[in-house]
């Protein structure tokens, strides 16, 4: 069993959306975010994002650090949520309690036994990816 230590000070998680809280709109979080409620809309998280158990992230968001998914991405129960696209520039860790119904784009993906990936996953092509040779 893998254990993740979330140290907000060390991981620079300086923002928090508390449980039972719902935010809608356009957001730009400077630093990491601990999401324990619901966040709808679009925006950017300039740091790590932790989607806690029972938390929900819906919309188009870009995460500039790692993503730890213990809750839910997308608004639908089982079907694919077309409106949710999460781009993660680091590693996306999907815990055994994590459910992703939206499109997940990440540089690296690590899934744990029991994690649910309903929506599509795409690898983020970074500067470190190998160049594609021209056929000519």
């Amino acid at each position, binding site marked *: *069993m*893998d*254990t*993740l*230590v*979330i*140290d*907000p*000070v*060390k*991981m620079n*998680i*300086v*923002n*928090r959306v508390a449980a039972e809280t719902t935010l809608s709109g356009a957001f730009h979080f400077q630093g990491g975010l*601990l999401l324990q409620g619901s966040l709808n809309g679009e925006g950017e998280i300039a740091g*790590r994002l932790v989607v806690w158990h029972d938390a929900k992230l819906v919309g188009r968001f870009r995460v500039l650090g*790692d993503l*730890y998914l*213990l809750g839910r991405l997308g608004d639908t129960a089982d079907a694919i949520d077309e409106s949710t696209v999460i781009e993660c520039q680091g590693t996306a*860790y999907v*815990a*055994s*309690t994590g459910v992703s119904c939206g499109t997940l784009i990440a540089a690296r993906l*690590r*899934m*744990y*036994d*029991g*994690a649910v990936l309903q929506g599509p996953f795409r690898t983020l092509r970074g500067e470190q990816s190998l160049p594609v040779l021209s056929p000519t």
Partner: protein
Amino acid sequence: MLDAEALDRYFTAQVVGVAIAVEMGPSDGIRREPAQGMRLHLLGGHAELLGEAARSLISPTSTAAWAGQPRSELSLARARRRLLAGGSLLFLVAWSAALWWLFRRFGT
């Protein structure tokens, strides 16, 4: 004088919370390793684990060393035990060598 960084740390700890450990789920046995270059990859992973075990030995709070990186506590505890056993063995060998040298140098 106001220390802005200390104030930030204080509010982060108060508002976001203190360090907490969460279980990510079982990972042993679900890892898929490519056959090519597997040995090098595993060696790298082993060295990284030993490094984290060493850091966790000297860290004030043992969990702070690997914050943000999901780790198997079982593997880490095993690596820590190996590190301690290896260190003790190395110390004993060095101590014996020093004694042997002293006896040879100043003995009758």
